[in-house]
């Protein structure tokens, strides 16, 4: 379960002054559901997700992951969170096995448990072929699967995806989408940020439209379609963020 209440993150910049990257964000994501955070570049998606992953401290408001507050119990939050972005940022000189083991150890897994998890992930994600190859020698797809295994090694209950398909080719993007669905099917709580409408339509049970750090609209795809009188999510998005007047506007 992910819950935020009036979550706000303000950055202070010498030149630009106060920047409210996230402004009063309130949302709730239940286990076994995918919440899509839909927004343009600079809308505040990444900042919100980084707060949830305890990489940033909120300025005000609250956020909890799996019942633990991100400020009061960040270690407990991190133990339950898997964070995946488009950039795999793997250690090129480590093998896939060493990478997965490294993150398993950072998550405090005991060696027998780690060995078990590694074997299971290698089976599930078909890593055996390149498990002992250095990451800088892997193809994009192999890197992506290694990155997924690294994210899952501690079996997190909550998955955070920050534009995970950005810049990937079709096949690599499909691997990610399949993996996200798999997370939902296994009962994980999933929050997924994207600015690709088609992905949000295909994947998300609930869609939140974020713009200028504020959550402007929220609901299932059907609810959003009914509310805006539009079948197309892109049109809904544009109307929600106030980019263009709707057909009904006088």
């Amino acid at each position, binding site marked *: 379960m992910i819950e935020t209440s009036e979550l706000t993150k303000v950055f202070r910049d010498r030149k630009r002054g106060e920047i409210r990257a996230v402004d009063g964000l309130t949302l709730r994501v239940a286990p076994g559901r995918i919440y899509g955070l839909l927004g343009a570049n600079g809308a505040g998606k990444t900042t919100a997700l*980084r707060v949830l*992953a*305890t*990489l940033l401290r909120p300025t005000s408001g609250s956020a909890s992951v799996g019942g633990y507050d991100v400020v009061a119990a960040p*270690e407990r939050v*991190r*133990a339950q*969170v898997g*964070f995946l972005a488009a*950039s795999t*940022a793997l*250690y090129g*000189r*480590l093998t896939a096995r*060493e990478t997965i083991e*490294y*993150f398993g*150890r*950072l*998550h*405090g897994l005991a060696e027998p448990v780690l060995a078990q998890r590694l074997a299971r992930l290698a089976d599930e994600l078909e890593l055996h072929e390149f498990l002992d190859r*250095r990451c800088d020698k892997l193809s994009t797809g192999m890197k992506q699967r290694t990155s997924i295994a*690294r994210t899952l090694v*501690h079996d997190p209950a909550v998955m955070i995806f920050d534009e995970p398909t950005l810049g990937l080719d079709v096949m690599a993007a499909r691997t990610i989408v399949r993996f996200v669905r798999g997370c939902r099917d296994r009962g994980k709580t999933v929050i997924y940020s994207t600015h690709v409408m088609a992905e949000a339509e295909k994947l998300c049970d609930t869609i939140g439209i974020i713009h200028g750090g504020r959550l402007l609209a929220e609901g299932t795809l059907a609810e959003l379609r009914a509310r805006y009188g539009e079948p197309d999510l892109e049109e809904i998005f544009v109307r929600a963020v106030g980019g263009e007047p709707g057909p009904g506007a006088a």
Partner: protein
Amino acid sequence: MFWSNVRTVFAKEVRDSLRDRRAVISMFVVPTLVMPLLLLTAGAITAKVVKKAQSEASPVTIVGGADSPQVVAELRADPRLRVVEAEGDFRRMIAEKRVRAAVELPAGFEAALAAGTPATVLLHHYEGELKSGFGVGELERFFRELRERTVAQRLAGRGLPADLVKPFAVQRRNAAPPEKVGGNLVGGIVPYLIILLCFTGAMYPAIDLTAGEKERGRWRRCCAAR
């Protein structure tokens, strides 16, 4: 948890660095081979340049001295000095390194010496310039010897012994065995050299592990883990 994570990160970084050819070269080859070689080469070249500069007769120019032909002749005859005729401003000659130094003889210098009245000889040089330092040093040596000769002549003229103004001598003698002297010199340099080489070796991995990791965006992944 904290220390186990420190161990995990440390072990991973060591493994990662040892597989990085650039890091291995920076950590081991540069401090143990390249830096000592560079230092030795630079030291040898400097020593050679200094030795050559010291062995050469220093080009100097004389300002004034028309009424002191004896001193000028002695300056010209000194094997450690090569007197160059002044061309325009002697200061400019020094600044352009055409001469290492210039000696400015006061008017009536030889007459003052003969009369026993004090006089001041000015030595002009290029502050901080190695060869100019040698040149002015040679001029100082020349005038020191001239002064000693003058004192000796004056004493002799009064029927006094030359050692009247030098009643005793002071000499230094090394009491330590030569190997200890060498060891002391090396011992004074080596620890500093080792510290310097450690810093040199650690520089690349340190930059790679901090700024490099931040640039590659991997820190975020580690921070997202416990």
